């Protein structure tokens, strides 16, 4: 079974977020980058577990620049067999999905795994767009994945509970918390990562569908008001007249 796992580089969660160029660009100075946790902890690790159990291969793919290679090598250190970098920088979900779909189309993978979203842009659009472009089924927000022959059984989060889905390969999934557990790359993996193939592929020409005009930080924390548990009228009054949300 051939797995393709989409990997994205994101700022470490403790990074100080700031912008440059009139708030139109993210300020990367001093920021430590990591593999997007949904991609790494869930999608990649589950793909590796299935490969280790049943054989096959795990390829990771990133649409990014050379500065993305350290996080790609981390994915290799965790255990992926090879890496592909589509040599382009973009914040546009369609552009990214199209590049990945083009590569996938030519290399026939059985399962394309994405994280459910990146923790910096949270657009959650890439998995669905890839599926559409490849004309494959998408199972989104999957928390469990098992594969038997060409049939995959997945569990996915739905409002208030979960749903079990069966799908035939090839298909695309977006992984949510629960699919696997974080793996710390071991020394052997780290040393092997250097000699695993990391192929750089030039992008196909695609027009971006969106452009980011500006960013804004959330306003600072506001005060927390406590209302006694038995004073529901007061709560409703506050929600109506002070917070003006109902």
């Amino acid at each position, binding site marked *: 079974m051939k797995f393709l796992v989409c990997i994205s580089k994101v700022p470490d969660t403790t990074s100080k977020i700031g912008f440059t160029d009139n708030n139109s660009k993210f300020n990367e100075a001093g920021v430590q980058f990591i593999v997007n946790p949904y991609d790494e902890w869930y999608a990649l690790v589950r793909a590796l577990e299935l490969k280790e159990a049943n054989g096959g291969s795990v390829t990771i793919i990133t649409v990014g620049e050379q500065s993305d290679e350290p996080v790609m090598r*981390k994915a290799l250190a965790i255990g992926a067999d090879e890496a592909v970098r589509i040599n382009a920088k973009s914040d546009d979900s369609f552009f990214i999905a199209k590049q990945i779909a083009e590569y996938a189309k030519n290399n026939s993978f059985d399962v394309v795994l994405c994280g459910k979203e990146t923790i910096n842009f949270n657009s959650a659009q890439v998995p669905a767009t890839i599926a559409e472009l490849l004309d494959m089924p998408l199972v989104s927000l999957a928390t469990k994945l098992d594969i038997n022959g060409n049939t995959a059984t997945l569990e996915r989060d739905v409002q208030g509970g979960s749903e079990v889905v069966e799908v035939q390969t090839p298909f695309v999934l977006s992984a949510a918390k629960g699919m696997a557990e974080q793996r*710390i790359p071991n*020394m052997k993996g*780290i040393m092997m*990562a250097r000699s695993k193939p990391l192929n750089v592929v030039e992008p196909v020409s695609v027009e971006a569908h969106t452009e980011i005009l500006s960013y804004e930080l959330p306003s600072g924390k506001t005060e927390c008001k406590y209302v006694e548990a038995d004073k529901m009228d007061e709560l409703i009054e506050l929600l109506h007249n002070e917070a003006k949300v109902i």
Partner: protein
Amino acid sequence: METTTKQALKGGEFLVKESKAENVFIPEEFGEEQRMIAQTCKDYVSQEVFPNLDAVDEQQEGLVEGLLKKAGELGILGVHIPEQYGGFGKDFVTEMLVAESLGDAHSTSVALMAHMGIGTLPILYYGNEEQKKKYIPKLSNGEWAAAYCLTEPGSGSDANSGKTKAVLSEDGKNWILNGQKMWITNAGFADVFTVFAKIDDDKNLSAFIVEKGFEGITLNAEEKKMGIKGSSTRQVFFNNCVVPLENQLGEREIGFKIALNILNVGRVKLGAAVLGACKKVISNAVNYSNERSQFGRPISKYGAIRFKLAEQCIRTFAMESALYRASKNIQDKIAELESEGMTHEKAQLKGVEEYAAECAIMKVLGSEVLDYVADEGVQIYGGMGYSAEAPMDRAYRDARINRIFEGSNEINRMLIVDMLLKRAMKGQLDLMGPATKVAGELMSVPSSDDEDLGMFSDLKKNVKNFKKSALMVAGAAVQKLMQTLSKEQEILMNVADMLIDIYAAESIILRVEKLIELKGEDAVKEQVDMMNVFVYDMADRINKYGKDAINSFAEGDEQRMMLMGLKRFTKVEPLNIKEARQRIAAKLINENKYCF
């Protein structure tokens, strides 16, 4: 392998020669693989150790042992072990980075350090091929845990005075060990013990590899300790313990030498481990000071708190600069010796030995910086600093041991001076020449000093003058007191304190200079502030140490002249240190974590 920096100073030479920034290594130069290894260690600590801190301190059965095994599975225990013995053969600087990255793991850190250092290294460095093949792979992958038995109830700092005895069995096939060891880290679960004992009536120790399964070993209960409560510390008794002849480690009577050489490595490594602990404490402290409000504002807005935060950073940054500078010097020396045909293990020992004084400096400096950082960490947390529910309580208690083990800080201070003097006597280091020159300078009219030392020329001149202060004091003390100097411990402490400060100050200047070349001045403004404050502050310290020493042995004209010289040598330009510290604190507060 990298090419070695040819112009690197020899051990102890920092006191009499200047270094160039391009010849020092700074932590900002770590490569991708090194960063990845460090991250693996940090992930291990945050995922495996942090959720278990209380359980570890309660000595939950098997927990630390399991954590050690887990580190072994990840390869962490074998980073510095040569590949032919199951390790990953990484260099000395990476070994230090691993120690730093595990350094905030409290008791578990002590267990890991003891295993990888004093537990494993005696066998790796002094074992014969069979011994290395038998033990090192299992120690490297965590299958076996190791301990080191040197200290006895009556033999601590005076380590060669141990009473544990080894005699040949009647059939001549085994050594029979009898004696009592104390304060043995990892004793509770160790599979392999390096035990120091005297054969028959020898004057000096010999060393033995003893397995848990050998007959005649018993353990006392766990010691009840102030801190590192989760680290197993027990007495170990040997009652007619039967050790096969082939388990003697190294030649007869070289045990004390083994012990000392292993401690050299342990000392610089302790400096690395405490660095990791410092960074964690600072991150917690700044985060708390941003969250905690009093009088309507976060306490991080108050100058008294900002002073503490800045000072924690300055000292940590200085210590880190010295640590990686020394580590790279050691690594280059190792590479040089290996290229001359020495075995890796031997080169490793000799490389560290060359810089033994710097190792002792790192031990004292590191442990005392951590104590300061942890103490002010408690203070910044206020009442919560005193609460066992918050992290500072454990940080404070666990920090304290570092000034005691691996040779107490008093012993290490004396060693710093002693090792430099010994190198001078052996002709490996010219101290007398420069000291005589300084003495001559005292008699002459101060010439106007327009020498250009490149970037930060003034600060470098300050440090040059601090070196002159130390040379003046040490040189005069040696002349005046001759053989009795080794008994004048107060003076030795003064000189050691000067040397420690000088090494740190020079390291921080060289690091900042290199940083500016790498990143540009704008990116490292706070580092420049840290350097400026450190040098400004230490001028008064050097003056005080020097004065105390001079007044302890000199009189009359000589005393007056030296005090005048000292005053001249410790003069620095005024600096608005309040504003400088404010800027350092502001950066830290903004980032909400240690960020330098």
